[in-house]
Structures are given as structure tokens and as C-alpha cells.
């Protein structure tokens, strides 16, 4: 989960998120250098004693400041498109989970190996135990195996919601009447948090998502297979 006042990305828990972090670093370095150049130009403009009121054209400079940004945009676009198509690959998922958004909770359905369906409500502050996270912990977590491709089918029963887990690099809109699909493979076990990411009413901030990722051997012993 994010720590207080965190601005940067969370550590990656899936290969796609690792790629996104790499792309973010790459783009941020380009942005830093552009900002540095602009600050330098601003500094020169503010401190120069030279004045020239007769400038009419500057063809060479205009050519440079057209072609250079185009090159920079291509340098940013190529890795971006690569990751975009990589994220869209569907690589034979082992498990399919349905996630249905409601006002203001999530319903999860494990229907591959039986009929496990449950709701996931945020724990109200009065029900928190020591160590629980306020506004993040839920009564029923989504328990999933690591190192197995998982398909999430996301929809909504009422208004727009969005199912997001930053550490996995996932954010998919839950749209009533439409089934959206996202796939991921988690690389390490743990408890990972997300929050609804599409305004959906008064309690939009109070319908978090909690994934509990566990080794496959332990997952196979759990309620999904023993119902």
C-alpha cells in the first residue's frame, strides 16, 4: 500500500507494472531535461541586457524546435505503445474472477470451480482491530494465487465504478451493461490495496479493494476448491 504523502509509484507486483515503472523513469528523465532547458532559457531571458527589436524570422531555430520535439515524442511513444500491447495480451489464464461494482461495495464471483460469491465491504472505523488500515481494509478479501495468470471480468450493477490496484498496474472501469476484462500475473505474495477510481456517489471513497495473494499450494487448499 502507499505510505502517507507518497507521490511516487508503489513497488511492482506484476511484470506489467515493472514495465510501467521503467517507462515512467524513462519519461521522467526526458521531462527533467526539457524542464532544465526551459528554466535555463527563462533565466537567460530574465537576466540578459541585450535587446533586439528587429527580429523578423529565424528559420533555422524554428526548424530545430519543430523536429526536436517530434523526435522526443517518438522516443516516448515507442515504449508506451510496446507496453500498451503487452498489457493487452491474454496468456491462457488459470482462473477467472468476476468483480461487480455496487454502491458502495464490490461483489466477487469465483465460478470456475464451484459457486463462491461474496461481497466485500469496507470495514467501518468502529469495527477496526489494532493493525487494520482505516478506509482500506475490508471484511472479505479477494484471495488469489501468485505466479498464475488471472483474468478479472469487471462490471457494475448500478453506476460507473473502477477496479484499481496500483501495485499490479491495474485500473479497469466497471460499466453497467458491459463486461471489461483485464489479466495479470502476481509475482510475490502479500496483501495489496486499491480503491474505487471512478466517482460513484457519496461513498465513492469508501469501497476499497483488497487482494490477498498467496502461494498456489495454499490457494488450492482454500474454499475455492473445497466448496
Amino acid at each position, binding site marked *: 500500500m502507499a505510505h502517507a504523502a507518497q507521490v511516487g509509484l508503489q513497488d511492482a507486483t506484476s511484470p506489467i507494472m515493472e514495465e510501467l515503472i521503467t517507462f515512467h523513469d524513462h519519461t521522467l528523465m526526458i*521531462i527533467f531535461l526539457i524542464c532544465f532547458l526551459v528554466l535555463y532559457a527563462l533565466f537567460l531571458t530574465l537576466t540578459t541586457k541585450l535587446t533586439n527589436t528587429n527580429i523578423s524570422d529565424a528559420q533555422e531555430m524554428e526548424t530545430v524546435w519543430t523536429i526536436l520535439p517530434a523526435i522526443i515524442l517518438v522516443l516516448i511513444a515507442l515504449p508506451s505503445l510496446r507496453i500498451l500491447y503487452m498489457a493487452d495480451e491474454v496468456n491462457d489464464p488459470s482462473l477467472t474472477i468476476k468483480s461487480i461494482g455496487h454502491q458502495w461495495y464490490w461483489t466477487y464471483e469465483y465460478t470456475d470451480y464451484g459457486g463462491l460469491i461474496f461481497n466485500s465491504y469496507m470495514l467501518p472505523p468502529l469495527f477496526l482491530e489494532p493493525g487494520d488500515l482505516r478506509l482500506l481494509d475490508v471484511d472479505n478479501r479477494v484471495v488469489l494465487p501468485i505466479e498464475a495468470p488471472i483474468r478479472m471480468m469487471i462490471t457494475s450493477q448500478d453506476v460507473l465504478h473502477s477496479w484499481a490496484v496500483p501495485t499490479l498496474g491495474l485500473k479497469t472501469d466497471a460499466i453497467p451493461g458491459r463486461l471489461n476484462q483485464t489479466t495479470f500475473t502476481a509475482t510475490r505474495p502479500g496483501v495489496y490495496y486499491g480503491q474505487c477510481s471512478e466517482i460513484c456517489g457519496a461513498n465513492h471513497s469508501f469501497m476499497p479493494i483488497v487482494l490477498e495473494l498467496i502461494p498456489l499450494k495454499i490457494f488450492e487448499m482454500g474454499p475455492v476448491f473445497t466448496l
Partner: protein
Amino acid sequence: MAAPPEPGEPEERKSLKLLGFLDVENTPCARHSILYGSLGSVVAGFGHFLFTSERSCDVGVGGFILVTLGCWFHCRYNYAKQRIQERIAREEIKKKILYEGTHLDPERKHNGSSSN
């Protein structure tokens, strides 16, 4: 402000954010690129001034940008290659542990093909 590291986890270095957003301590290759860029800027600017005795700030800034970018791409390419090699090594070790002694043992397949 940051959460304390778990025992056994490497401690996250204190972040130093250039221009308020580029975290050079925790971004791989950033510190290395900025330092080499600064050195390149000084060398280019000072060298230009020595040879021409003209204003060299522009050359210095240009040198900083070019050297930083060059070091950055070079370092990130090597870092990506290293990550891929680490991932392959991790997979091979896992396969070796899982299949050792069975007909799927990668070492047995390799020895079999080399003796043929």
C-alpha cells in the same frame, strides 16, 4: 514519513528530488547519469571557453543534456539486459529444482544432446 523497512529488506535511500520530481536516489541509473552529465557540462563549457574565450554557458547546458541522455540510455539498456538475465537465471534455477532427477531435468537434456 516513509514506512519503516521490514527486517531483511534493503533500506530505501533518502530521496533527493531534482526540480521537485526526479528522485535520483531511488531511480536506477538516474544518479549516475546526472553526475556524468554534470561532469560533461563542466568539461564542455570550460573546454569551449578555453579554446574560444567566448560565453560558454550554452555549450555547458547543451553538454549536460547530451551527456546525461547518453549515459541514461546506455545505463538503462545495460540495466534491462541485466534484469532479463536475472529473470532467465531465476527461471532456470526454479526449473532445475523442480525437475531434478526426472526426464524433464534440463541438465539431462543438455548432457544428452551434447553426447549425441
